[in-house]
């Protein structure tokens, strides 16, 4: 290859941008060519001079600190903003989930209260309110044996204003339970007993609350959920609940 063709590529060779094979060939030529060798040397000198001269401007240390401080501040602000947003979104998500969960839980609880009320009303409206008719707790309690998967104690009500009317099997959320009916004057009060686990913990304890215009008390004891409900006064509901709590 004539020298003028080599020289066309001299700068590219010195920039190290020729393909490897061509680089080797060029190197061989430059070392042996009396024309190209000084030209290459001169251009290398120019390159080196430009490298030296080209680096003449250095930033002031104060300016560097200023930019570095600016970056650090912005980064931290960005980091804080990111995390604040992330935290806010997390709180929103958790709140939303919690609200959704609580909403669902509240909905189930209210539905359960409504079902209890329905059971109470339906039983009173029925021509056969109870399946076992007796004021004797030793008669009523054994009647449930083998009919429900748990046992319970009935209180002594002889010296109280309450009298046992009888009992029946009932169901709440497909779980079997005992439904006892007590009379208090002209009022009739229902006492429901279910296994706590069958109600999946949707009931919370309450000494006296109004649900659908009925007074209600509920508590959990020995794995069983007790619900006393009726249109009697809260004091009567509470009193009967107290008798049950002390039974056994």
């Amino acid at each position, binding site marked *: 290859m004539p020298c*003028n*063709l080599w*020289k*066309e*590529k*001299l*700068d*590219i060779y010195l*920039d190290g*941008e020729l393909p490897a094979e061509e680089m080797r060939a060029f190197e061989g030529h430059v070392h042996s060519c009396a024309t190209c060798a*000084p*030209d290459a040397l*001169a*251009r290398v*000198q*120019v*390159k080196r*001079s*430009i*490298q*030296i*001269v*080209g*680096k*003449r*401007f*250095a*930033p*002031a240390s104060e*300016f*560097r600190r*200023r*930019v*570095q401080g*600016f*970056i*650090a501040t*912005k*980064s931290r602000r*960005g980091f804080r903003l990111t995390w604040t947003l992330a935290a806010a979104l997390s709180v929103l998500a958790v709140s939303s989930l919690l609200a959704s969960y609580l909403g669902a839980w509240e909905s189930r609880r209210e539905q359960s209260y409504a079902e209890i009320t329905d059971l109470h009303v339906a039983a009173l409206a029925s021509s056969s309110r109870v399946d076992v008719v007796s004021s004797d707790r030793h008669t009523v309690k054994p009647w449930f044996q083998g009919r429900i998967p748990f046992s319970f104690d009935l209180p002594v009500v002889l010296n109280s204003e309450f009298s046992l009317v009888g009992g029946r099997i009932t169901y709440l959320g497909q779980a079997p339970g005992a439904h006892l009916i007590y009379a208090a004057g002209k009022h009739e009060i229902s006492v429901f007993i279910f296994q706590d686990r069958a109600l999946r913990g949707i009931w919370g304890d309450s000494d006296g609350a109004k649900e659908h215009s009925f007074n209600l008390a509920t508590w959990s004891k020995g794995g069983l959920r007790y619900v006393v409900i009726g249109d009697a006064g809260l004091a009567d509901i509470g009193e009967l609940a107290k008798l049950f709590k002390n039974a056994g």
Partner: protein
Amino acid sequence: MDVSGAGHQLESFEELAMPLFDQLYNFAHWLTQNREEAEDLVQETYAKALKGFSSFRLGTNFRAWMYRILRNTFLTSRTGLKVTMTVPLDPEEDGAEGAVERDTPETILFERSNREVLENAIAELPVPFREVLLLCEVGEMSYEEMAETLSIPIGTVMSRLSRARKALRNRLRPAPQEENAAALAKGTNRAV
């Protein structure tokens, strides 16, 4: 400086960008030819880069990205617009420039060792020539990296670089009366 991998987001912008501070400032000063404007340009570059860091693409060249931001910022600045509008370039053609037969400018430069002459010659180059020459020689960028930085094809990088070198050689070539003096000095040196 290739930044790749999913972990790069964990690296702070500061860790990646500050090592480039000196060379970016130097480049900015060569473009603006003014300390205050260079500082403004660098500061704006870092502000823009920091703001756009989340959009920086994985696996691409971070240094080229920073240089590109600085260059674009300069070109859209008042100084940059003025410079690029008043120094039109001939149409560029891809491919290397023809061989330079005479090696006089290089020899003269070598022999004169005149730093100031070279500085002035570089400073007088039109911005497109100045920047490509500085990116190549001072930034030691590959043709590919320069193409990425300048957003032009590699062929254009090669032709522009070749023309920049030619323009520099022409500026280093002494005026006729100086040439005589240089020749005289050369002869004197040889005699010595």
